[in-house]
């Protein structure tokens, strides 16, 4: 939670500075942001590769566990496709891309504002923060009504770190390993799924 607050503070401070135009013009261009993003992707990858747990979990993987992130991806895409019906002024591809942050708001908002625009980047930021907060608050209710996998699904990519404590508390410790696995898979896939959505959407337009 502390990490999320710090991140939001950085964003809000930047926003306040931008509103007041209190900056040299070179900082408002998007190009330095793109290279910084590539660098960040490299770092995120390094963090995953260096994590001993990742390789141990991959070693004793079984098909049942593999289905968890698959189901989460399908459910998320289905749900966000539905949301584009409720929000007719937002393109279906945009809704899908925002949903495909799977709660990983820092990375997804940066990628989406690079590919599309800042408006959608902010949508992704707020939407994926909402997903994380929703999971933290409702985990016990979700377990009660939808089973022990529900908070893992709701947490999405965050189930490997920020929402892991509530998952292991309400779903049980045996679901923690599963949550970490599913979270890692989704975290790795976020940039690929978002780019793929726009690649596919561009074929139809």
């Amino acid at each position, binding site marked *: 939670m502390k990490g999320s607050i710090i991140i939001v503070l950085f964003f809000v401070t930047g926003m306040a500075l931008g509103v007041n135009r209190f*900056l040299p013009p070179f900082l408002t261009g998007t190009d330095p942001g793109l290279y910084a993003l590539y660098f960040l992707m490299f770092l995120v990858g390094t963090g995953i590769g260096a994590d001993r747990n990742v390789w141990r979990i991959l070693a004793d993987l079984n098909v049942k566990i593999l289905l968890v992130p698959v189901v*989460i991806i399908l459910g998320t895409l289905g749900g966000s496709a539905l949301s584009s019906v*409720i929000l007719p002024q937002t393109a279906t591809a945009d809704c899908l891309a925002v949903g495909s942050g799977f709660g990983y708001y820092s990375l997804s908002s*940066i990628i989406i504002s690079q590919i599309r625009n800042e408006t959608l980047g902010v949508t992704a930021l707020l939407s994926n923060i909402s997903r994380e907060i929703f999971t933290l608050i409702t985990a016990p209710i979700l377990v009660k009504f939808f089973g022990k996998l529900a908070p893992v699904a709701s947490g999405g990519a965050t189930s490997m770190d920020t929402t892991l404590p509530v998952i292991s508390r309400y779903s049980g410790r045996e679901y923690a390993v599963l949550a970490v696995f599913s979270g890692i898979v989704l975290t*790795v896939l976020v940039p690929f799924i978002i780019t793929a959505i726009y690649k596919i959407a561009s074929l139809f337009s």
Partner: protein
Amino acid sequence: MSAGIVAGFLLRGRQRVIFILEKTTGFSIYILLFFLGISVGANDKVISNFASIGFNAVVIALCSVAGSILLSSILYKTLFNGKKN
């Protein structure tokens, strides 16, 4: 990112390097979001539409979560032998 995963795999076990890398990752996320904040703040379209952006965000979040919970509960009941544990 794939290059990063390979690099990380080769570096595993070197706790000090990994520690520094994790700090750098956290820091660059802060910096990038700071930049995103700046360009968002300087973008009048975003600022004037903040309420509707927030509404869209929450609708997309709730729909995505609902979809994934629904499918996961089906998976739980069929393959994970729900109820018993």
